[in-house]
């Protein structure tokens, strides 16, 4: 592969031909701030935060500008700093960004940049357009467009990753808004609740129903695991709060899913902490389930299976196992059926 040499703030780095300036910077651990860019979606170039100075002259958006051999990049100087501050100030003035009430407080990319560039609080002198707030129509997603910076990540997340194209911009100029399908509420749209738009949203404009009131982002504890629902093996970061309650599931970018999840991985884990879960075996006695000890329950199952096997033969017994079990558990199940019961009647829920 062709390599190119560039300097970032005086530091020489190597990039690949065909990369943008920002891509080279990210590969080399050089920090350039951005809002509309995301590695999982196509380039937009709309937020203008990632402007850098190329060869001491022109300001170029690093997310879309091709890197070239011998380029000299300054990632920040006084003018760029001022521009970033002005643009961030415009975003603050355009929307309603009150971190006190925002469930994404602490994880918001806009918040982080406003902090970094010491952006003054908006004066409120410019008229704002009220945009849609819909926290009820969907049981998975919440939408508060007053926190939206119209970066377009959700639009592209939906059309390029989930391939569902629910989100789109409508209106124009300062009256631009998001729409889901044909001006529908998100809950009435064709949204499949994969949550990819929320995961990519740089602010709290899109959120999950499960987040609000369950602890601040910095109080949450993260555990990574593999999704149990299908064979893709998506890596998921589970966030639990101080009480140990599951708050949200986010796709881990290191996994084969590259951060993406489907509705099952995103919202399908509340059963773990459900109070309806069985914690002890139950045996039906006189038409009613009664709690029992494991020895008693297993003894009962073994005797009943032996009874059936001797009365009607091993092929009158069948076992289903589950994708939620590990490979080892599934192996044991079929081994038990074949070696102990003596039948090949083995199947799996994923075939249903």
């Amino acid at each position: 592969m062709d390599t190119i040499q560039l300097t970032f703030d005086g530091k020489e780095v190597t990039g690949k031909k065909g990369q943008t300036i920002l891509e080279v910077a990210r590969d080399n651990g050089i920090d350039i701030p951005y809002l509309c860019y995301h590695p999982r979606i196509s380039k937009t170039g709309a937020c203008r935060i990632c402007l850098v100075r190329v060869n001491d002259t022109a300001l170029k958006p690093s997310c879309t500008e091709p890197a070239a051999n011998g380029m000299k990049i300054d990632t920040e100087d006084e003018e760029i700093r001022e521009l970033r501050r002005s643009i961030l100030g415009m975003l603050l003035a355009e929307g309603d960004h009150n971190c006190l009430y925002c469930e994404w407080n602490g994880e918001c990319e806009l918040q982080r940049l406003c902090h970094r560039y010491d952006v003054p609080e908006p004066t409120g002198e410019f008229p704002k357009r009220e945009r849609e707030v819909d926290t009820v129509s969907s049981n998975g997603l919440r939408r508060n467009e007053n926190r939206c910076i119209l970066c377009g990540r959700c639009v592209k997340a939906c059309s390029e990753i989930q391939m569902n194209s629910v989100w789109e911009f409508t209106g124009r100029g300062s009256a631009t808004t998001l729409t889901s399908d044909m001006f529908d509420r998100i809950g009435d749209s064709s949204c499949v609740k994969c949550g990819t738009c929320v995961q990519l949203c740089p602010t709290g404009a899109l959120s999950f129903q499960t987040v609000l009131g369950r602890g601040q982002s910095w109080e949450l504890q993260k555990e990574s695991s593999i999704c149990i629902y299908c064979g893709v093996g998506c890596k998921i970061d589970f966030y639990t709060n101080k009480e140990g309650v599951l708050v949200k599931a986010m796709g881990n970018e290191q996994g084969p899913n590259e951060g993406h999840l489907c509705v099952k991985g995103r919202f399908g884990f509340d059963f773990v902490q459900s109070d309806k879960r069985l914690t002890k075996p139950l045996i039906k006695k006189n038409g009613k389930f009664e709690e029992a000890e494991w020895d008693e329950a297993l003894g009962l199952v073994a005797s009943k299976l032996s009874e059936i096997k001797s009365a009607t033969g091993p092929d009158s017994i069948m076992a289903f196992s589950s994708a939620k079990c590990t490979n080892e558990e599934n192996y044991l199940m079929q081994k038990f059926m074949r070696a102990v019961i003596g039948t090949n009647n083995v199947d799996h829920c994923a075939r249903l």
Partner: protein
Amino acid sequence: MKPEKISKTIEKYGNDREHLMLILRDLEVQSGKNVLDVQTLRSVAEQMNMPQGAVAGFVGFYTMFKTEPRARFVIRVCKSGPCHVMGSTNVFDVIQKHLGIGIGEGTKDGLFFLEKCECLGVCSVAPAMMINYDIHGNLTPKRIVSILNSYKKKKPTLKEDCGKEVDGKACVINDPKQMKRLIADVGVVDPLKIESYMARGGYEALKKSLKMEPAQIVQTVKDSGLRGRGGAGFPAGVKWTFVTKGPHQKYVVCNADEGEPGTFKDRILMEENPHLLLEGMAVCGYAIDASLGYIYIRGEYRRSIERLQRAIDQARQKGILGKNIFGSKFNFDVLIKEGGGAYVCGEETSLINSMEGKRGYPRFKPPFPGGAGFNGLPSNVNNVETLMSVPMIIGKGADWYKAVGPQNCSGTKLYCLSGKLNRTGLVELPMGSTLKEIINVYGKGMAKGKKFKFAQVGGSAGGILGKDLMDLPLDIDSPMKKGVTLGSGVVLVCDEGTCAVDFLMQILSFFEHESCGQCVPCRVGTAQLHALVKKIAERRGTEQDIDALVEKATVMKKASFCALGQSPIMPITTMLKYFRKEFVAHCNPKHKCPQCDKSLARYYSGRGH
């Protein structure tokens, strides 16, 4: 609307996304109420196999479409520079009085709905309005009422029925001192008959081209020094060389989205001499090895669309468009695409997105259209005036062409005169004519003997020229050195009665309305600029607000995605250069300004202003 009616309409145009604009326009006319309701749009999305959001996003972008029922006739009153100066507030007054409706409101009988709009391209007969697709100019109270009355028995159609005053011929200044090249045949050639064009030597340049090598043609255009007439002034021949060579499909795209307020040259050229454009496109197509051309015409130019379509049909019949043109191996055809009311689509990459049935967002460059344009294929985008200059360059040679005009900006230029002049209209002069000459000779001086205050040259995105720049050659390079621009050739002249604040408010409201909203500096910046100047016009402003105009526009200039957001700095700084005092005066709450009062009362009233 019934699904069968919708499917029939889709069938008529084809169910590819690129036909969405024409399909929706047709359906809107069929609705009889100028509406594309949600149910219709859902059906369109389903039948065209498009995401619903994509259709919703498209409809929301183009201002000519609305999802709420309007009326049988939508009256769009222009409020852009020339019309504003010539009294569009009065037009709103009369309509409001006569029909009892404000902006965004409809009459109870369902006949009329009132909207304000930006430039309709008939600036020499300002003030103007458009009723559905019919444009009427020279509006006086009496005329407005009689025009409105004439619609009582009409039915909405896609066929235009414009007033005589907006006729292309009528909008050309008849002065023998001009140097007529591009408009030499305007009024001489019958635009409806290809024979008339051919009798004047039409399509001879194409014939000649087909005997030349494509590279030779490109070289001739390069040698001629022809620079893009859309506003940017990029050398046309050089642009042609950027089209990626190879066996793939390439396109010639004609940018006929003439939206810069005050510009009407392309409309006149297209209406009066449509075959010249087809010939220019065909020569370009041969030169860059493109077998297909598209003309993207703004939706407001119904007459241009109709006449060009007719010209295309005739040329196809004669075998001038089609296969093996004039017995050569060259195949070429031209198709028309329409706009939907979006100034930003004059930006070539926005235009291409719009052609593809998408929101007219500009694309980042590179890749440039010459590498990846329409449908991702190499496309050469040129303005109407540029392409129409090509046949004469081929016919008469590069040396003949560049004998006129300054060294680096050769040829003639079409100047669009509007505003407070004794005579307004289109003139063709050598590139680099001065404001003084244009005003005094071709405009016959200031109207009603009033004093000159300033001229806006280059359209809303252009700068303000005061008395000191009367002798500045209006070519492509000289104005740049003075912080102004020739742009598309607009010369809008204002007299002492024009309020600088009021004028700037109209420009900045234009930019807010026309910003596509993709990038932050332009989306928020245009809204904030508009709010600031409105505050000053309302006499609630301070000197800090005046400075804030410059600060915001500077950020926009440095950081905006495309030329639209980079433009407002020019009218702002040049206006303040001359008239800062007037702005300061407006910061006094007791300052009297009937003009600002009137604009504030008219343009910002009604349900949908």
